[in-house]
Structures are given as structure tokens and as C-alpha cells.
């Protein structure tokens, strides 16, 4: 009867509290007394990997916000020149992108990056600065930034595909569409003689380094 009974089995808890409605994934709270955060938005689907989605949306939002400001800076200098309409059209598309990410941010309850005011100024300065180098300079800046952004979107698409393409279908669609748009901007920049800019490769490398740093920081802060 009592022969085998010693201690009852106790299921090992996983040690980390999960967000019980938003599925697995480490939350940055210790197991001791932390609240499982009830994510109760109607729009956000259940069972998503919240930390990864958080990062993705936060950094994409910051990116589109920055891109907006870059084009605003370029328009401020070159608005009345011959490339004005081209830049305006690209800017309009970025505005659409930003609007979409604003909606996603609210739906998934993602916090925006603290650095937004900084990207506000830095983006405008980059746009205006590159435009002061001339039309080709502005196009070179566009090429560099759009290339960075499309690579970045591709990485995100890969990450989401590895996670679960079905669960993140809508998000994947959005990112793919935006990646194609950015690619188009990149091609427009090339068409408009971006590569003929003096010191093109130096400029391009510097801008892309800045973009990488911005992406790194916006994901985390």
C-alpha cells in the first residue's frame, strides 16, 4: 500500500511567468510575485510571441518615423527643385507606412521607443544635410537608407517565417508590402543618379552605419 508512495510528484514550474493570454516567451519579470500581464486587446491575436513582436513593431515604427523626417528634411531644401515631386511622392508613401505602424502599435500595445524625439531631429538633419549636397546627394541618402531598411525588413520576414508563418500572416503581409515599397524607392534613387554623387561610397557607408545603430537602439530602448 504505502510501499512505493514517498513524495508526490510535483510538476516543475517553468520558473518564468508567462503572459497567460499572449502565450509563451520570457517576460522581463521574475517568477516570485510578478503579475501575468493580461493582454486584453481585442485586435491582438492570442498566443503570439510578445517580446519579438514588440521589438519588430517598435523598431519598424521608429524606422518609418525617421524616414518621414528624412524626406521632410529633403523636401525643405529641394522641395522646389526638379526632384521635388519625386521626393514628395516617396514621402507620401512613407506617411502611409507610418500610419499603418501607428495602428499596429496600438493594436499590439507596443511601447514606442524613447528615442523618438531624437530620431525626429536626426532624421530631419540627415535629410536636409544630404539635400544640401545637391540632388544627387539626396538621392544617395535615399538609396543608402532604403537599402538598409529593405535588408532589415528581410531579416524580420525571416524571423517571423521561422517563428510561425501562419500566426503572423497579417504582419508578414504588411512587412513584405513595405519592403517592396522601400525597394522601389531604392531603385528610384539609383535612377536619379545617386551613384554619381561625389564620395558616394563613403556617404553610403556612413549612413548605413547610422541606420544599423538606430535599429539596434530602437529595438531595445
Amino acid at each position, binding site marked *: *500500500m*504505502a510501499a*512505493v*508512495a*514517498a*513524495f*508526490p*510528484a*510535483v*510538476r*516543475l*514550474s517553468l520558473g518564468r511567468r508567462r503572459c*497567460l*493570454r499572449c502565450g509563451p516567451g520570457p517576460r*522581463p*519579470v*521574475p*517568477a*516570485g*510575485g*510578478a*503579475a*501575468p*500581464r*493580461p493582454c*486584453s*486587446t481585442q485586435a491582438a491575436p492570442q498566443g503570439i510571441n510578445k517580446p519579438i513582436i514588440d521589438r519588430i513593431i517598435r523598431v519598424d*515604427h521608429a524606422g518609418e518615423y525617421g524616414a518621414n523626417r528624412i524626406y521632410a528634411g529633403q523636401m525643405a531644401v529641394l522641395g*522646389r527643385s526638379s526632384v521635388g515631386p519625386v521626393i514628395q511622392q516617396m514621402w507620401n508613401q512613407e506617411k502611409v507606412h507610418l500610419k499603418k*505602424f*501607428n495602428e499596429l*502599435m*496600438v493594436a499590439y*500595445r507596443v*511601447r*514606442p521607443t*524613447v528615442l*523618438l*524625439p531624437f530620431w525626429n531631429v536626426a532624421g530631419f538633419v540627415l535629410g536636409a544635410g544630404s539635400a544640401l549636397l545637391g540632388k544627387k546627394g539626396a538621392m544617395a541618402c535615399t538609396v543608402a537608407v532604403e537599402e538598409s531598411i529593405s535588408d532589415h525588413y528581410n531579416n524580420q520576414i525571416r524571423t517571423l517565417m521561422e517563428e510561425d508563418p501562419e500566426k503572423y500572416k497579417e504582419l508578414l503581409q504588411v512587412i513584405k508590402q513595405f519592403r517592396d515599397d522601400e525597394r522601389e524607392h531604392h531603385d528610384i534613387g539609383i535612377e536619379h543618379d545617386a551613384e554619381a554623387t561625389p564620395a558616394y561610397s563613403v556617404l553610403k557607408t556612413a549612413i548605413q552605419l547610422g541606420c544599423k545603430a538606430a535599429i539596434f537602439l530602437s529595438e531595445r530602448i
Partner: protein
Amino acid sequence: MEFVVRCQHYPPVRALQASAVLRRVSDEHKKEPFTPSSQQQFDTHPAGHQPEQEPQGPRPSYTGQGGQESEDYESEEQLQRRILTAALEFVPEHGWTAEAIAEGAKTLGLSVAAAGMFHSDGSELILHFVSECNAKLSELLEKEQKLVQLGEAEKKPTDEFLRDAVEARLRMLIPYIEKWPQALSVLLLPRNIPSGLSLLTSMIDDIWHYAGDQSTDFNWYTRRAVLTGIYNTTELVMLQDSSPDFEDTWRFLENRVADAMNMSNTASQVQSTGEAVVQGLMGAAVTIRNLAGLNQRR
């Protein structure tokens, strides 16, 4: 016969043995584990998690070869939560201490040694309490939101909503208000600051979310910072309030929320004034350029 035979395979983890012993003791005293307080939502674990089931009656169950336990075992976390919830009843008398936890364990039919699972300063008890209160608040706000969506209730203006939410949350402290200063000081221990802070921020975020905040710029941060300030100061006022039903505290809260609303109105006024001034200056600059003949298209 109530004694249930259990085979188990589990890795010899020291931390588990304590709870394992307690579990065995609880099997031998097949008491109703749910204290009256747990009938309220207080003990409700958010939906979706394995509901703990107390095995009813003799049921031979044993682990299979892989060491898989059958469903009616609870995890150590769940057990701890049950103990802490039961301990809350004894906090007004014993404070946030190991004694309260020991008493709570006793009501569950566990040995008082259960209190040894926790820190002696009552940190886990306090954090558990705070997280339970936050969960209750979220449920309350969710219900309210549903009523508004169904059209059965009016949507409250922001300041009223914030006031009601903070008041509802602070009212949960009333049964423990005597010992709450002790809890606050424990929460300020370096060990507890990360968890305490994260509980606070998620609560404030919840309140703003249900208040309908959709900001995606730096406002996101300013709003939450302001509300955190309001909450903390009101909490401190409440600790020293001796008016009937804490009227002074709620009046203080009302004033602070009104201040915050004024501040945001002032801020937007300043911004629009600033924009108007800039436009005026730009207009003046263009005029001067025109007058000086500089405004030629190249």
C-alpha cells in the same frame, strides 16, 4: 481510504522537497483547501492556466516511464500562490511576515514549515498581493469596457475614468492599510525594486490602455509618468488619511487629476501658440525677401 498511492520520478531538487513534504501532509489531511476569501475573484488565476484540482477520493495514479505526472498535480508556483493567498487573511494581524504565511499554510492544512519556502521579510507575499490587485483591476476595467461596447454604459471622460480606476485600485489596500507602510518599505528593498517597478508600470499601462490612450509618440511616456506620479502621491496621502472612508484622499486624487488635465491643455495651448508665432515669423521673413527682391525662382 484517503491515502493516495503515488509513484513519482522527479529530479531530486531540494526546493521541491519542501513542497513535496507539504503536499503529502495535505494529502493526509484532506481538508477543503479553499479559504472563504478565495471564493472571490481574489484567488482567480487568469484564464487558461491549469486549474488546480484537488484529487477527490482514492484514485491510484502513478507516473509513467517518462516521469509524466497526471493532471491533478499542481506546480510549485501554484502551491506557493495558494499559500500566499491564504496568508493574506492574517496580514492585518501579523503584518507582512513569515507568521502570516505560516498561519495561511495552516489553514490549507499544510505544515507551518511552508513559510520556509519564502523570504522572511514577506517580499513574496507583498508582491503576490500587488499582482493580485492589479489582476483584479484589469478584470474590472475589462468588464467596464465591455459594458461600454455593448452600449449599456456611458463612456466616461478621461479624468473621471482615471480617477475611478486609481480609486478602485487604492481601495483594495483598505483592509491592509495599517500594515501597508511596512509593505512599501519592503518593496523598496533593492531585491524587490525590479519586480515592484514592473508591476507598477504594467498597472499604469493597463489603466491608460482602458482609458483609450492611443498615443504612439513621446506622449506615451509623459502620460504614464504623470499617472504614476498621481498614483504614488495619492497612495502616500491615503496612508496618513484618517477621514471617514478616506474622503480626503479621493478629493486629493480629484485635484491631482484635474491638475494633470490642465497641464496637458496648457501644453497644447503653448504648442499652438508657438506654431502661430513661427508662422508669423516665416511670413515676415518671406515678406522681407520679397521686398528685397531676393525671392526669385532660380
